């Protein structure tokens, strides 16, 4: 796939909202940004006054040709960059962004297959972008999300996902604490959960899985055990540094 040139851009923070106690949505105005596909990411670079630089990758929550780019960042306890972005960065501040990046973990409206999205924790961000792209394109391709998270308080974009439930329904799965009245006890995703909450292999879905490494590998193995073709599963792992 030929791609437009990838370069470093300056992004100025124009909007910031708290998503949870530990996560924040950051929207940057990025002059010259060529737009992005659903599922792509950026490398974000910060430079200290002594020249020291730190670069991290973040998924893009927004989608389309706009030059406003929305990221959702979760604070990592031992992190160097994420606590600064979540707790300190102010509207008007600038960062450097390289992108848009990636072409494999990407959903395009012209894909004909039904789509199963499976998120672990903040791995929901690129998958949220795919539901946004599905809505923007008024796509009629079936798309659904299985969202595994620790507690109800950890949910990112809950309202938005629920508003979209008639076109891209979400199945919520809690691993540590469930909401009151929830019938399924808290616990890890099991093969039975995967079977009951995802599109079966007979429907030939394209499945996107994003989350921490252990989550992604467990889910991908589970999907193959259910009979999915390995090449129909696209995975993206993230880790904290």
């Amino acid at each position: 796939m030929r791609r437009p040139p990838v370069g470093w851009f300056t992004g100025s923070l124009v909007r910031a909202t708290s998503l949870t106690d530990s996560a924040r949505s950051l929207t940057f105005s990025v002059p010259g940004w060529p737009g992005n596909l659903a599922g792509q990411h950026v490398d974000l670079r910060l430079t200290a006054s002594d020249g020291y630089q730190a670069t991290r990758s973040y998924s893009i929550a927004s989608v389309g040709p706009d030059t406003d780019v929305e990221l959702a960042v979760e604070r990592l306890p031992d992190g160097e960059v994420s606590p600064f972005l979540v707790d300190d960065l102010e509207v008007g501040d600038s960062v450097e962004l390289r992108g848009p990046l990636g072409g494999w973990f990407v959903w395009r409206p012209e894909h004909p297959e039904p789509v199963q999205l499976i998120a672990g924790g903040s791995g929901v961000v690129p998958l949220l972008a795919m539901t946004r792209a599905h809505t923007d394109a008024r796509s009629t391709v079936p798309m659904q999300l299985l969202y595994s998270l620790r507690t109800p308080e950890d949910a990112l974009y809950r309202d938005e996902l629920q508003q979209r439930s008639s076109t891209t329904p979400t199945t919520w799965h809690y691993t540590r604490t469930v909401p009151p009245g929830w019938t399924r006890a808290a616990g890890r995703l099991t093969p039975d959960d995967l079977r009951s909450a995802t599109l079966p292999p007979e429907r030939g879905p394209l499945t996107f899985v994003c989350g921490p490494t252990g989550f992604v590998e467990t889910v991908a193995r589970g999907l193959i055990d259910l009979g999915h073709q390995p090449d129909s599963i696209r995975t993206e792992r993230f880790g904290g540094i």
Partner: protein
Amino acid sequence: MQHLDGNVLAGPASELFPSEPTTTRGQCLSCSDIATLAQAMVYGAPMGYVVRCRGCDGVLVVITEHDGQTTVNMHSLRLLSEL
């Protein structure tokens, strides 16, 4: 830190690959597996990116960055053109 996958190479490899790195296909010279770079496993961050075959764990390529310079050291990877 646990390993990542080849999606993370999109930025670091962008200056050295003529097309999108993560959809570039390659063949492992140890076990002959063919996959996109996105499907490879990536160890060693933040010292560098040690890209290993998803099938046999063999080192395919090592990418390091410092002082704005990116180095791609091919170990056991045959790059394939687009289909």
